[in-house]
């Protein structure tokens, strides 16, 4: 991500943000509320269109045609997004579909996977995140933690090259946070490339390869987790961290 800027109604939310996530890395994006963390994440898969700057996924620019000006056609943009998983703060499961259908929907109808294969893979993924027994339930009966684990399985089912997590535990009761973090920790250990916007400091410290701290739309610090948490370089980061200890 190079020099990405974005404003909403004249208010600059991101200013010339640069971010680089290497394959297999987990990068956590920290910062106060309203600092632009979610917007940053949503620019990566073009749910928000940046005003300027460019975003490359494995070397290919997203959202814009090769000429750098005109919009990518709907179909092409969809194809690129299919390679980027996303897990949302408010889960955003599809309520008319059962758990297993939520996980197989995109692989069957976007990737064109055979139904049997998609179901087999979905069952394995649901086992992996620990909700195999909820296979045929509808989302409205699930707890927040269960919903979010379905959300993770749904993203994984697309075999993405990177998964974006947008405050995945912020809408959960404290006692349900653990089960979601455990699923994410397992993914990070397997070498999944992850960009995580979170307020879970302990998790960020333990799992991340790099911490990106942003404030008022600017990247203020980027460091290895130990360095960031133990020896923050800027006053702004120190102030931010002091609220969590």
């Amino acid at each position, binding site marked *: 991500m190079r020099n990405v800027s974005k404003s909403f109604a004249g208010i600059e939310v991101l200013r010339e943000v640069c971010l680089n996530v290497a394959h297999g890395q987990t990068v956590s994006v920290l910062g106060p509320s309203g600092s632009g963390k979610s917007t940053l994440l949503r620019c990566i*898969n073009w*749910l928000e269109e940046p005003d300027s700057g460019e975003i490359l996924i494995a070397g290919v620019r997203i959202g814009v045609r090769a000429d750098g000006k005109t919009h990518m056609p*709907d*179909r092409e943009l*969809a*194809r690129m*997004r*299919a*390679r*980027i*998983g*996303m897990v*949302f703060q*408010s*889960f*955003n*499961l*599809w*309520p*008319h579909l059962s758990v297993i259908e939520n996980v197989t*929907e*995109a692989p069957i*109808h*976007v*990737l064109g996977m055979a139904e049997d294969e998609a179901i087999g893979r979905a069952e394995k993924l649901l086992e992996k995140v620990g909700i195999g027994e909820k296979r045929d339930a*509808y*989302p*409205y*009966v699930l707890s927040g933690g269960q919903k979010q684990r379905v959300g993770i399985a*749904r*993203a994984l089912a*697309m075999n993405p090259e990177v998964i*974006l997590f947008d405050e995945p535990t912020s809408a959960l009761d404290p006692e349900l946070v653990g089960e979601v973090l455990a699923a994410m920790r397992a993914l990070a250990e397997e070498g999944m490339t992850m960009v995580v916007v979170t307020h879970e400091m302990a998790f960020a410290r333990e799992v991340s390869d790099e911490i990106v701290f942003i404030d008022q739309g600017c990247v203020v610090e980027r460091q290895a987790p130990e360095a960031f948490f133990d020896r923050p370089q800027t006053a702004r980061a120190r102030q931010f961290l002091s609220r969590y200890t």
Partner: protein
Amino acid sequence: MNKWEILWNHREMILGGFKSTLVLFGVSAIAAFLLSSLIVLAIRTGRAPFGRVVRGVVDGMRMLPFLIYAYLLYYGLPSLGIRFDAWTAGFIALITYHAAYFAEILRGTWATLSTGQAEAARAHGFTTFMMYRRIILPQLVLRAAPVLGNQVIICLKDTAFLSIITVRELTAAASAVQSQYFIPFEAFIVAIGLYWLTSMLIEALVARLGFAAERKGLGYKLAAVRR
């Protein structure tokens, strides 16, 4: 001859009219629904002037009395050199008029869906059309089932207006028999009974959609309880 016997003797005429009513209604309701799905997609995702124009046409249509619209198509258009036979004019009237109403129902229901679901679909690689077909539209139908069912019944009853533009459907058949033998009460009771029967079948279908919606937690009852 007993009045009911007269009707029985003309059963072929009445059942023929009933069959025409069912064809008019069935084809129109399905076509109107498909058309309305496209209209709503155009309103919600079409480029700026196009979506607004479609919305304007829909609103204009909804403000038109159905009978006058049917008159206009059958009796009015020939003066502009456009001539339809009665059935074609009838189909066009039913389909476009009810598509406008279906579209308004779907559009209003769409406004109540969380935007997050659509975002999730986009993030998982759905094109706009696929997202609409697989994620949005099924939910619109489930959530709006009772209101859509109501509109389908109105569509059934609007077929009766077509008797006035010479389509020989159920109302026209009942009307023909009663005016020949002066048995308006009996003839219209039979017609009403057949409209009722069809409406009850529609209601049964809508109820099944309602059950499906409730099973998924999208029904009105459950939604009320959860709040």
